[in-house]
C-alpha cells in the first residue's frame, strides 16, 4: 500500500530517535487519507453492517427495490419494491454489551401495499411498483406511512399488539361460543401478554386524482396535508379526506403539441407550510407559495442555472432533467440531482446553485451509448445527512458517492457482498476516466451499468445509511471506537 511505503521511507531517512508507535500510526493514517483522498465529514470511516435480500443473480422483477426511507426517529426503515410490497425494518434497542456497534435492523413488518390494476377506459395496465414511501411523524403508539404507485396513494397504519384478552364468559379460548345455559360461574376477562404481532392496515386510499404517473409525495409540516405530483399536475390532499383533492399546479398545455417539459419531483418545505418546490425535465426548479393564489401556476421563485455553452450537446436537455429534489433539514437549502451532478441551491439565490458536485463526470463522453441502453433516463435520488453537512447519491457499478460540504472532500464507496464482515471499513473506490489505470482503479468501460444505486437514505440523527442495489438493501454505519 502506498501509504505504508511513504511511512517507512521517512522513518529510515530520519537521524532523530525513532518515532513512537503512536506517531507512526498517526503518520500512516494521515498519509493514507491524502493518498486515497478520503472524505466524508471529519473522516467518517464507513463499515459494513448488514445486507438484506437474496444472493442469487437472477433477479425477479418484483424484487427490484424502488424506494427506501427512514422514519423521523430513524428507528424504522421502510423499503418498497416493484412488486408492490413494503418491508419495514426496526432497529434493535442498544445493547449494553455491544457498545461498539449500534442496533441492527430486523424485519418488523411486511405487507402488500399495491396490486397490479387495469384501467379499462384507456386499456392501460397500472403497475403496482411503489414509487415513494413517506413516513408521518409519530403521534401515538402506532406508526403511519404513505405509499404510492403510479395512480393511488395509501395511508397505512402499522400497530403492535402484544396482549390479548382471555377469560371470556361466553367464548371459549379458541373463539367458539359457549352455550349460555352451561355457564355456572362468572369471571372477569383479563389481558394477558402474547407474542408480539405487528399489524399493517390500510386506513385511507387516495385514488382517481391523477391522470399521469405519480412521481412524488410529500407531507406538509402542518402534518395534516400532503401533496402528490405527477408529470403535469400537483394535488394537495388532507390526510383525513379521500374523496377530494385540490389541484395546485397544472402545467398541461391546452395543446399537447406544445408540451415542453414535465414535472419530475416535488417537495414541501420542512418548516414553511405554504411553500413547496417542484423540479422539471428541463433542469429548472420552481418554488411556489400557496398563499399567493389557489392555483400556483405562477412560481414565486424560479431556480435555473444558465447553461455552459462549452458543454452543449444533443443530450444537454436530457441530462439536465432533475431526477430528485430535497430540502435540507434546516430549510435554507435544497439539493437537486441531475444525471451527472448534484447541486445545492440557496433558496435566496435563483440564478445559480451555491455548490455543484460532479457524481460521475467521466460519463459525459459516453452519453450516446448511455442513451442507446436507456441508462441516461435513470432517476437517481439524493439525500442529506442529519446535520446537512454531507450529501449522498448513487451511481453505477453499485458505487455511491458522498460529498462533504465543509471539507469539500468526496468519497466513492461500493455496496458489494465482498466487504461482508461487520465492522470492516469500506475501501474507497476510484474510477479511471482515461489514460493509464492505476492499481485498484476501475476503468469506465468496465463499469457495470446494470448495477445502479438509485435509492439511498441517511438516518436522521446518526451516521447510519441504507443503500439499495437492484434487489439488496445494504446498511452501513460509521466505525465506533
Amino acid at each position, binding site marked *: 500500500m502506498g501509504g505504508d511505503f511513504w511511512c517507512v521511507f521517512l522513518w529510515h531517512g530520519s537521524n532523530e530517535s525513532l518515532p513512537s508507535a503512536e506517531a507512526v500510526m498517526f503518520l500512516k493514517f494521515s498519509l493514507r487519507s491524502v493518498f486515497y483522498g478520503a472524505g466524508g465529514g471529519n473522516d467518517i470511516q464507513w463499515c459494513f453492517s448488514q445486507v438484506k435480500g437474496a444472493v442469487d443473480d437472477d433477479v425477479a422483477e418484483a424484487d427490484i427495490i424502488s424506494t427506501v426511507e427512514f422514519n423521523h426517529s430513524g428507528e424504522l426503515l421502510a423499503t418498497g419494491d416493484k412488486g408492490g410490497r413494503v*418491508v419495514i425494518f426496526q432497529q434493535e434497542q442498544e445493547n449494553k454489551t455491544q457498545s461498539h456497534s449500534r442496533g441492527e435492523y430486523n424485519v418488523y413488518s411486511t405487507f402488500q401495499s399495491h396490486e397490479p390494476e387495469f384501467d379499462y377506459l384507456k386499456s392501460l395496465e397500472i403497475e403496482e411498483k411503489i414509487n415513494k414511501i413517506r413516513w408521518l411523524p409519530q403521534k401515538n403508539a402506532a406508526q403511519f406511512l404513505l405509499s404510492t404507485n403510479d395512480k393511488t396513494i395509501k395511508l397505512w397504519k402499522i400497530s403492535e399488539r402484544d396482549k390479548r384478552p382471555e377469560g371470556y364468559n361466553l367464548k371459549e379460548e379458541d373463539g367458539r361460543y359457549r352455550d349460555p345455559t352451561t355457564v355456572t360461574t362468572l369471571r372477569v376477562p383479563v389481558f394477558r401478554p402474547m*407474542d408480539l404481532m405487528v399489524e399493517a392496515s390500510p386506513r385511507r386510499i387516495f385514488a382517481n386524482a391523477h391522470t399521469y404517473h405519480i412521481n412524488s409525495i410529500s407531507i406538509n409540516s402542518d402534518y395534516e396535508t400532503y401533496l402528490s405530483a405527477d408529470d403535469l399536475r400537483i394535488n394537495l390532499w388532507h390526510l383525513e379526506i379521500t374523496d377530494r383533492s385540490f389541484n395546485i399546479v397544472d402545467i398541461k398545455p391546452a395543446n399537447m403539441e406544445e408540451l415542453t417539459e414535465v414535472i419530475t419531483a416535488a417537495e414541501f418545505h420542512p418548516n414553511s407550510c405554504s411553500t413547496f418546490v417542484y423540479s422539471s425535465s428541463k433542469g429548472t426548479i420552481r418554488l411556489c407559495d400557496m398563499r399567493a393564489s389557489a392555483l400556483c401556476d405562477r412560481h414565486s421563485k424560479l431556480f435555473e442555472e444558465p447553461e455552459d455553452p462549452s458543454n452543449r450537446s444533443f443530450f444537454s436537455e436530457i441530462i439536465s432533467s432533475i431526477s430528485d429534489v430535497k430540502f435540507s433539514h434546516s430549510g435554507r437549502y435544497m439539493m437537486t440531482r441531475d444525471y451527472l451532478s448534484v447541486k445545492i441551491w440557496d433558496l435566496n439565490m435563483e440564478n445559480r446553485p451555491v455548490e455543484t458536485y460532479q457524481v460521475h463526470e467521466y460519463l459525459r463522453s459516453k452519453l450516446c451509448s448511455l442513451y442507446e441502453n436507456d441508462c441516461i433516463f435513470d432517476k437517481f435520488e439524493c439525500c442529506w445527512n442529519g446535520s446537512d453537512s454531507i450529501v449522498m447519491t448513487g451511481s453505477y457499478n453499485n458505487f455511491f458517492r458522498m460529498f462533504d460540504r465543509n471539507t469539500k472532500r468526496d468519497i466513492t464507496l461500493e455496496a458489494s457482498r465482498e466487504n461482508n464482515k461487520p465492522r470492516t471499513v469500506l475501501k474507497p473506490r476510484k474510477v479511471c476516466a482515461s489514460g493509464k489505470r492505476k492499481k485498484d482503479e476501475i476503468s469506465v468501460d468496465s463499469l457495470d451499468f446494470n448495477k445502479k444505486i438509485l435509492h439511498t437514505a441517511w438516518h436522521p440523527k446518526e451516521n447510519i445509511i441504507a443503500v439499495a442495489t437492484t434487489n439488496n438493501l445494504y446498511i452501513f454505519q460509521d466505525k465506533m471506537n
Partner: protein
Amino acid sequence: MAAPLGTGAFTEETGRDKQAAQPEPGAEPKGKYPGLGLRPGGAEFLMRRLQKGQKYFDSGDYNMAKAKMKNKQLPSAGPDKNLVTGDHIPTPQDLPQRKSSLVTSKLAGVCWNVALPSGGSCILLGHFLRGS
C-alpha cells in the same frame, strides 16, 4: 412555417433549419446519431414519456383508426409496443406475460404472513426473530 422551438418531430425540422438564419440550438445532423429519431425535449418525445405502461388492444382505438385509414392496410404491432394502440394492433403473442407477486419479499426473509379481515396483513414475529 417554422415549427416553434421544442416541438415537432426531429426529421421535419432539419430541412427547414438549413434555410433558417440560425440553426436550432442542439439540433445535431441526423447522420451523427442515426438511431435517434426523436429530438429530446420535443413534444413527441415527452408524450412518449407520459404514455408509460403496456397498452392493450382497444376496440375504440381500432375502429377509429380503421375509419381514418379506410383503404390503407392497418399496420400490425411493430417492435415498438409503446405507441398509442390506435394505429397498431397488438397480437396475443406480443403481449408480455403478467406475473403476480403475492409472495413475501426476499428482503423480509422468513416470516409468516397473516391476512386480516380489514384488508391488511400482519406478520407474527417469533422469539427467534425478535430475540428475547
